[in-house]
């Protein structure tokens, strides 16, 4: 009996050695901010093509993501990090958390987006933080919608604007940067005028948009909010029952919108560099880039990617976004936020 068991085991062992077994899939770990989303099919396609398993981790918003990456520089939590934007870019590059990677897919991306010439951080998507307004409110009250930053400080818009605190919210910071870019050193005077004009400040985009803003489902008291250029498109996509016109719109006056560009990078000391590089290539590829807009409400940087119809129809892009270099942002951001907090007390 024992002998039989022995031979049986030997036989099965030999048999299993002979049958060609598929190689164990390799794992690549990707850490992103909490807003990251993508189609299941898209990721499955990558996994099948590369015999890989993609594990996603989410680590809070862009700021906390970067802080965690800096803290764990020597033993990173993941192989790839996605979600550092141009307001955090310089800090990420200074902390030297990324490894340079010249992805072949960069060829399809315009130079404007490539803010890091050393290719440690590669652009993935962009979107504008803009003033959104409730179309119905302005039609009902026979009031023209605000078009410029200056309009917001006018008496006819008194108490109508809700903004996010730049110390706690990323669109809030983007809007502060837009005012800094537009007014230069006089930005605090502008904010004092906004304060006298009854601007409402809340901690997060969620509160601003769903609790205070009147144009969306929360039906709050303020008809003007700092949100995204793509928000009107989202209002159409997520309307129940379907509607054929967006209830909100963005003000696109010169310098009122701030352009956020999001980057991906391969973390130094990661565990699987070749697969990490393949994943970065994939994120910049047409397939991923075309799936991105409806999942994250951002624009693809890859010029070969086609936009979904609803974006073309309802999402608005300004041709004159506020301009500021990542270096200027990095060296002044904290001082500006501190000064703003002091001024708005």
């Amino acid at each position, binding site marked *: 009996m024992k002998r039989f068991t022995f031979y049986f085991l030997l036989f099965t062992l030999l048999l299993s050695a002979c049958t060609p077994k598929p190689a164990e899939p390799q794992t690549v770990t990707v850490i992103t901010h909490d807003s990251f989303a993508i189609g299941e099919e898209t990721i499955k396609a990558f996994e099948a093509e590369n015999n890989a398993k993609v594990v996603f981790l989410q680590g809070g918003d862009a700021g906390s993501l970067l802080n965690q990456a800096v803290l764990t520089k020597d033993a990173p*939590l993941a192989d790839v990090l996605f979600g550092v934007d141009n307001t955090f870019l310089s800090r990420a590059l200074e902390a030297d958390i990324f490894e340079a990677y010249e992805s072949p897919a960069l060829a399809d991306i315009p130079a404007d987006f490539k803010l890091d010439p050393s290719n440690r951080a590669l652009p993935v998507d962009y979107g504008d933080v803009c003033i959104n307004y409730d179309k119905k409110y302005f039609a009902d009250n026979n009031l023209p919608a605000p078009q410029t930053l200056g309009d917001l400080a006018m008496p006819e818009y008194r108490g109508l604007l809700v903004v996010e605190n730049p110390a706690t919210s990323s669109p809030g910071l983007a809007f502060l940067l837009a005012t800094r870019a537009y007014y230069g050193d006089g930005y605090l005077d502008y904010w004092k005028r906004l304060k006298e004009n009854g601007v409402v400040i809340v901690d997060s985009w969620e509160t601003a948009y*769903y609790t205070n803003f009147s144009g969306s489902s929360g039906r709050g008291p303020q008809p003007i909010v700092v949100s995204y250029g793509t928000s009107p498109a989202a209002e159409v996509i*997520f309307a129940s029952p379907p509607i054929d016109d967006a209830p909100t719109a963005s003000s696109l006056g010169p310098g009122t919108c701030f352009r956020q560009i999001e980057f991906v990078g391969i973390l130094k000391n990661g565990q699987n560099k070749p697969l990490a590089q393949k994943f970065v290539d994939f994120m910049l590829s047409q397939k991923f880039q075309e799936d991105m807009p409806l*999942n994250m409400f951002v624009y693809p940087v890859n010029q070969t990617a086609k936009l979904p119809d609803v974006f073309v129809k309802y999402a608005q892009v300004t041709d004159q976004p506020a301009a500021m270099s990542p270096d200027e942002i990095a060296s002044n951001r904290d001082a500006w936020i501190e000064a703003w907090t002091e001024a708005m007390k």
Partner: protein
Amino acid sequence: MGLRACLSANIRIFLWLPTLLFLIYFFFYPLTRILNLTFSPATFTNPNNLLITRNSLLFTFYQATLSTLLTFLLGIPSAILFSRFDFRGKSLLRALTAVPFMLPTVVVASSFNALFGNHGWLNVERLTFNVSPFLLILAAHVFYNTTIVIRIVGNALSRLDPKLEQAARSLGADTFRVWKNVTLPLLRPSLLAAALLVFMFDFTSFGVILLLGGSNFSTLEVEIYIRALKLPNLPLAAMLSVIQLLFTLIFSILYTRATNQVTAQTAPRFAAARPPKSLREKTFVLTFYLLLVTFFALPLLSLPLRSLTRLDADRGQRGEVQYGFTTDYYKELFINRRGSLFYVPPIEAAKNSLGYAGITVLLSLTLGYPAAYALAKPTRLEKFLDPLIMLPLGASAVMLGLGFILSFGRALASPWFVPIAHTLIALPFVIRTLQPALASIPERLRQAASTLGASPFRVWQTVDFPILSRATLSAATFAFTVSLGEFGATLLLTRPEYPTIPIAIQRFLAQPGGLNFGQAMAMATLLMVLTTLAILVIEKLRLSDSGEF
């Protein structure tokens, strides 16, 4: 020292060991690592840092004191109402007061808005926003924490031996004197326990302040969050969290001292609640009944109403906003519209939440029971160790989260860390709920049972268990609700495949659009129904239990 004493001293160590090891590995170790890396004495010499510290410390104390007082103002009469009187809809109302404790702040704000907002049910023009943010913060703290007072003080009230009050009354004392000389002194430990927990929650309040306070108010916890993650000044964040920890330690020590002085005279037979008799009692019951319904049920009911209402019908077109009935938001919950990778059906999120809550209950009871036994008859060692249990309540979630990342790295991807983090927060509740009950068991009852030949298990079964079953259920409810409502602030790192209900709500709220908002409201309603049901079940268990003894 005899053999017996030596043996029992050793056993005591073993009683402590699980909790202590758990705290060392999952609390002190990660916290030490992050503080070690970021704390520097030089931070103290920077005048700007000191100014920030002073301001946030003053505000933290100010709002926590006021909030605690207000919470007691509503909580004590409510505790009396629930423990002394029987009336229609009692268990439902009691469950309702516990629900806010578990709801994410964003949802509570939306439901207040759905009720009082511009287009809200009451259509009171901008009521919520004309009230000063500070008053809103206080109201929210009362809304969240009254349940703690009701549970702890109410539990103690119904465990009081009614004979004591009857004796005082028959000796001619009026109601006021009975309260002053009999009831209040006996309630002191539980009053202190409740005050301490409420104060601690208000002291470390985070979401409420951030959400309702705008940019003008910041507690220590909010300041730590901003300095650690937003305006990176980790040394200042470290200094602030050390200060917050020190204060927590001081409160805990004060508390331990106070409670050890008084041992409540309690009985396993519970003072039975009865219908109100006199006119005064009837007025009292009716007044607080209505008050609680208005304060708790109305905002909570506006949630399910809002999740079934369409406000978006004619947006973008002219005309009035129309309210319509719809079940779209619930149907939509089950459709993965964008084929999204992280889409999780609500039933899965509910399962995750319940699973985590179940593990948290098991883990915190397993760890908490032995520790509470040891604490019930404290020796010098325990008096020293006791306050440490409370520390996780006063630790900044952000700093602890960063410590976790430093200490456990890629292992954090395991979903097990979620119930572990929840247990850290639930453990103080569990131990504090079990400890007074354990301390109240007269040793001579156990001795009598042993003398009569009962095995240790039988002693536990016949003496300890009847007294403990109620406290255990209370402790389990606390652990369960802490876990269900925890918002993942403890862990900065999450696996998107295993969202809990609060995380699923946040995901819907993070994108614009009527369907997203409606689904968030539907999920919040689900969370609310789930927790209300859980609490009702526990209440039922409790009642049938007490019938036996």
